[in-house]
């Protein structure tokens, strides 16, 4: 009889019983809905077991890669550790090794972490200030032996956390980090699939991580990046991305400005609208959308209507905490 472990408690699962039924039989408070693999309310993950195929039907590739599955569709044959999605993980310490301005409002923060951390470029991570204030930021770099994480932090008006990073954080200071989360990252396996990356502001952080990850893993299909802001000061890495586009034949870069002042070499208009204008047919494309929540939502709908499958659209909306808006 397989044993299930959740939050340090163990439960027996009868043969032919689903994970969901076993947990409910033990009065575990767990979300569920249709009980037939449709509504995805009972989504859960296993840190140690690859779930059976039928329990991952309909999930995104990036969720499958993290062992997410539907509890109502999983009949375990071996012992299985379980973890609720969005459960608070433990913190590890990191040290600030670099702080650099990317543009007048945005800092590149690089930290070196101690211990072990598994992450995918494009995922986000909670950073914690000494007094407990938490904010999540996306990871812009690839994993390496240096154990570094790179974040892009825009200073928000009255933004408690971002102001602290901009005005008070120094090299050598300690910042606590939580386990990385999120489904917006690159998965290998379909190297010829065309990729569309659309971001506003520091949406470039996850997209740069995804872009470099795709190139590193030998992606051969076309990759189009549209990075937008109102004015030129809101963008960054324009020269770097142009240089990369010159070097990599399958990479195309379009900096977009929605304000009135549009210098030569830039596209006039909002990034997602210009992207959809340039690429009106997205059947078979994989799409990544990061940044302003309104842009992400509108672009998700437009990309879907343009033919992209919903499962192939990965989103990361940067919602600003209400106290900081």
């Amino acid at each position, binding site marked *: 009889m397989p044993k299930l472990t959740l939050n340090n408690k163990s439960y027996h699962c009868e043969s032919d019983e689903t994970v969901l039924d076993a947990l409910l039989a033990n009065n575990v408070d767990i979300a569920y809905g*249709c*009980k*037939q693999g*449709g*509504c*995805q309310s009972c989504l859960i993950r296993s840190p140690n077991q690859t779930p059976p195929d039928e329990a991952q*039907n*309909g999930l995104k590739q990036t969720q499958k890669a993290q062992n997410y599955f539907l509890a109502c569709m999983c009949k375990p044959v071996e012992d299985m550790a379980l973890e609720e999605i969005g459960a608070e993980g433990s913190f590890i310490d990191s040290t600030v090794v670099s702080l650099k301005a990317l543009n007048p409002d945005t800092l590149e923060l690089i930290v070196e972490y101690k211990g072990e951390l598994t992450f995918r470029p494009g995922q986000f991570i909670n950073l914690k200030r000494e007094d407990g204030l938490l904010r999540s930021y996306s990871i812009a770099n690839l994993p390496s032996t240096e154990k570094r994480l790179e974040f892009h932090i825009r200073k928000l008006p009255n933004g408690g956390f971002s102001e602290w990073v901009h005005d008070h954080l120094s090299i050598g200071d300690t910042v606590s980090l939580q386990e990385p989360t999120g489904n917006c990252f690159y998965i290998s396996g379909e190297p010829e699939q065309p990729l569309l990356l659309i971001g506003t502001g520091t949406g470039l952080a996850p997209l740069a991580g995804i872009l470099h990850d795709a190139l590193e893993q030998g992606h051969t299909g076309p990759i189009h990046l549209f990075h937008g802001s109102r004015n030129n000061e809101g963008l960054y890495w324009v020269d770097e991305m142009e240089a990369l586009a010159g070097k990599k034949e399958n990479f195309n870069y379009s900096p977009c400005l929605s304000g009135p002042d549009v210098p030569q070499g830039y596209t006039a208009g909002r990034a997602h609208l210009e992207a959809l204008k340039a690429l009106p047919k997205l059947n078979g494309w994989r799409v990544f959308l990061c940044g302003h929540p309104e842009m992400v939502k509108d672009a*998700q*709908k437009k990309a*879907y*209507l343009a033919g992209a*499958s*919903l499962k192939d659209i990965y989103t990361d909306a940067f919602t600003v905490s209400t106290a900081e808006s």
Partner: protein
Amino acid sequence: MSETLYEKLGGEAAVDAAVDIFYRKVLADDRINKFFDDVDMEKQAAKQKAFMTMAFGGPNNYTGTDMREGHAHLVKRGLNDSHFDAVVENLGATLTELGVSDELIAEVVAVCEPTRNDVLGK
């Protein structure tokens, strides 16, 4: 034993193909897309899969109460018979696009019809 409607239509694979086309049609339909403005698209697609499975006569846990509660906030915003008809029309057009016969489409429509009063809170 004769095949069920769900089996005749192609089971779960057919449902997945139909949801993809159907949801696009609904979002592009100005008669009804205002009801879908504020929803989480991925959750909505999952709900449509459950709805479509029910419409195809497949295994489902839909109850009249679910339908009533799930649509009550939309009824307050003016959801009425014309919108229900538009959804059924989009469903029919989706199945036509997938090459389903008129006869089977009529069966699907007949499965949906009894939910009308619950959906519209009558």
